[in-house]
């Protein structure tokens, strides 16, 4: 009772101020909650437009909360859900961000029936279905796939410097001093979350697919020698990054590579969208890409998805929304604009009018590689773990204490495990 009272108050303060469209009860409405605005806004708007064509008369409320790469939106969403005022459907990263926060809290409706009736069970890759399954039920509809383990560079610059794209981190560490001597930052990095993003891919390279999966399944200790080796390697890699990392957004760090001030950049493939659309560069010519060192044959993925919260005011409209989101037509409308690949395996990815050469190569890898879930982007670990893990990485960057980072991560994993 007390908690409910408090929740109402939080909603009163945050929710009312930010979302004018709350309490949309009854009839022809559908409220979609996301953090897609700015560059990512048009993709969502196209999807909403398509929805309106199919379901005329439904008023779609696009409730977007921007800021902090989704952190602000997720905070508002939590206050609304706690206050008993859920949107009809909301954006959430498939995996532990959904399971650990919402499914275990019993606030989502299972969607297995929808998957069955729409015949989707074999239309998504099995690894992805596993990721969105908990206790035998499916909980969300993935709309897109992004790849985390990509290393970006400018081919012409590499030629000028006489540097090859490193296939392993050892190769990278070998060219690091050479680039430094030329006054070039070997590896660009931005604010703290990009460091976590880099670390997950160092971890993946060091542990391999099995080790990485075991680590997040709780079968491998964070204090294991192989994980400590990843921290030690991360320490060496950090010495090859720009000292002002904390002052740069991920786009500004990307700019260092485009401007030839840095050689390489490990970032998710939204960077391809940024360089293609915003910077007007051609994939393969203006910028090059490769799996991040030591992760060839592995696709470290994250997926945006939409779920159905319990108590959604317009449940039928929300189900129609999910049907659209999971359809080939919906995914082929959304993804070319978003700069991601469709989560469905039967979408029209070979169509060069829709998907550029980078996205086609990513789709090919997605179909053939081993899939693992991203840590930084909500697939591999619950929010409670990720939140404190960002503290661990920021402490590690300041202290470079491998044993401390290892024991702290293990303590976190034990305290926040979702089983």
């Amino acid at each position, binding site marked *: 009772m*007390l*908690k409910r*009272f*408090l929740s109402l*108050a939080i909603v009163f303060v945050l929710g009312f101020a930010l979302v004018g469209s709350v309490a949309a009860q009854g009839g022809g409405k559908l409220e979609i909650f996301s953090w897609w605005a700015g560059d990512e806004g048009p993709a969502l708007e196209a999807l909403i437009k398509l929805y309106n064509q199919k379901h005329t008369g439904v008023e779609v409320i696009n409730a977007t909360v921007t800021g*902090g790469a989704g*952190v602000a939106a*997720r*905070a508002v969403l*939590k206050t609304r*859900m*706690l206050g008993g005022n859920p949107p009809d459907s909301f954006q959430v990263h498939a995996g532990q961000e959904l399971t650990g*926060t*919402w499914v*275990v*809290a*019993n*606030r989502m409706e299972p969607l297995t029936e929808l998957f069955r009736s729409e015949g989707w069970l074999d239309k998504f890759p099995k690894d992805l279905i596993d990721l969105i399954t908990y206790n035998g039920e499916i909980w969300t509809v993935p709309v897109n796939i992004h790849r985390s383990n990509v290393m970006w560079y400018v081919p012409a610059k590499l030629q000028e410097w006489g540097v090859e794209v490193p296939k392993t981190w050892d190769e990278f560490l070998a060219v690091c001093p050479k680039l430094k001597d030329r006054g070039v930052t070997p590896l660009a990095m931005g*604010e*703290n*979350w990009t460091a976590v993003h880099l670390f997950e891919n160092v971890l993946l390279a060091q542990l391999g697919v099995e080790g990485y999966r075991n680590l997040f399944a709780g079968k491998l200790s964070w204090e294991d020698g192989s994980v400590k080796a990843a921290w030690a390697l991360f320490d060496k890699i950090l010495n090859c990054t*720009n*000292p*002002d*990392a*904390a*002052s*740069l957004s991920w786009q500004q760090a990307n700019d260092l590579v485009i401007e030839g001030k840095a050689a390489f950049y490990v970032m998710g493939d939204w960077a391809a969208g940024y360089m293609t659309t915003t910077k007007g560069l051609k994939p393969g010519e203006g910028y090059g890409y490769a799996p991040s060192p030591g992760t060839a044959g592995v696709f470290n993925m994250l997926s945006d998805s939409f779920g159905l919260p319990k108590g959604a005011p317009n449940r039928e409209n929300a189900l129609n929304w999910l049907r659209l989101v999971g359809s080939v037509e919906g995914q082929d409308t959304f993804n070319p604009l978003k700069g991601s690949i469709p989560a469905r395996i039967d979408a029209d990815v070979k169509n060069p009018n829709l998907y550029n050469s980078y996205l086609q190569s990513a789709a090919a890898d997605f179909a053939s590689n081993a899939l693992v879930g991203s840590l930084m982007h909500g697939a591999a670990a619950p*929010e*409670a773990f*990720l*939140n*404190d893990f*960002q*503290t*661990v*990485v*920021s*402490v590690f*960057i*300041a*202290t470079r*204490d491998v044993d*401390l980072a290892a024991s*702290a991560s293990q*303590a*976190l994993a034990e*305290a926040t495990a979702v089983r």
Partner: protein
Amino acid sequence: MRLNIDRITALAVLAPSVILLAIFVYGFIGQTFYIATTNWQGLGAVEISSVGLQNFERLFAGSGLPFFRFREALVNTVVFTVLFIAACLSLGLFLAILLDQRIRAETLFRTIFLFPMALSFVVTGTVWRWLFSPRSGLNTLPTLFGGAPLPPDQWAWFTDRRQLVTFTWADASRIVVILIILGLFAFAAIAALRRRPVQALIAGMIGLSLVGWFFLGGAFETLGNVVRPAHGVNLAMFSIVIAATWQMSGYTMAMYLAALRGIPEELREAARVDGCNELQVYRYVVLPLLQPITLSAMIILGHISLKIFDLIYVMAGGDNLRVDVPGIHMYLTAFRGNNFALGAAIAVIMLLLVAFVIVPYLINAFRTEVKR
């Protein structure tokens, strides 16, 4: 105390705000205290249970890195508060004295100095993030005069990871306890000199029992026995201090200027007649008269700096350890990490910190009002 029509009207007019305040301010403060003593995590409808003061114990003595981060934030807040208040007061006073020299275009300068206060901390944070960006901001200033830009690793501003003075949490807590003990004994001694035996006795007793607990009870060894890593005065904090001072020193200037204008010219004249030079006029006449203003300014600035969130969140991001403060840590713990109980505990500690500053001031102000 009879109920006449005036009293009833007064009560009726006051009632809505009193009721709203009681619920939405004090009710939820109480709620926060309650949540801070539970184990509420996650968004489920699970029963939450009371864990007593465990959350506080962890924050101050837990060995996990989230708790280390809280203590780092606490140290940063203290450093920030001291530097920020000192900088605002001295700069504000300096500007006020300059403006008080009856210069030309005084209004223009006053407006210029006061103007940053009209901005929100978010705007200030964005602007100074650009200015202090090691690659592109102030560091490129020398290039205007044909020089080389300052090296970003030496002039790292808010991204700096270096620490000036380092100490462990155990050191810090021991020093704080020793200071409290010394303070209690000093208070007791003063009270004794002023012939107030009850006060002297109480302070002395508390001091003695602290000594007993601390040195004899073994607390000296165990208190905050969390060794790694070290805390310290972080260089990055200075950038935040500069930005905050830029914004708020105009405010102290305005307060000081008003006070300076309130000092009658006769007093200064009298001092000069008595043979004071200008410096001595300020030292013995003006500055002592400004003391109440200094106190008010310290209170206002103090509660701003203890609660600061927006400036640092915008300027340096949410996970920049070296400039972390409790406000940011609370927000992320509660709303990103879903650990509402721990977040509430941090909020309670922030409230107590601010209360230490505000409550004595309020009591003091209340007393003066009654006297009038």
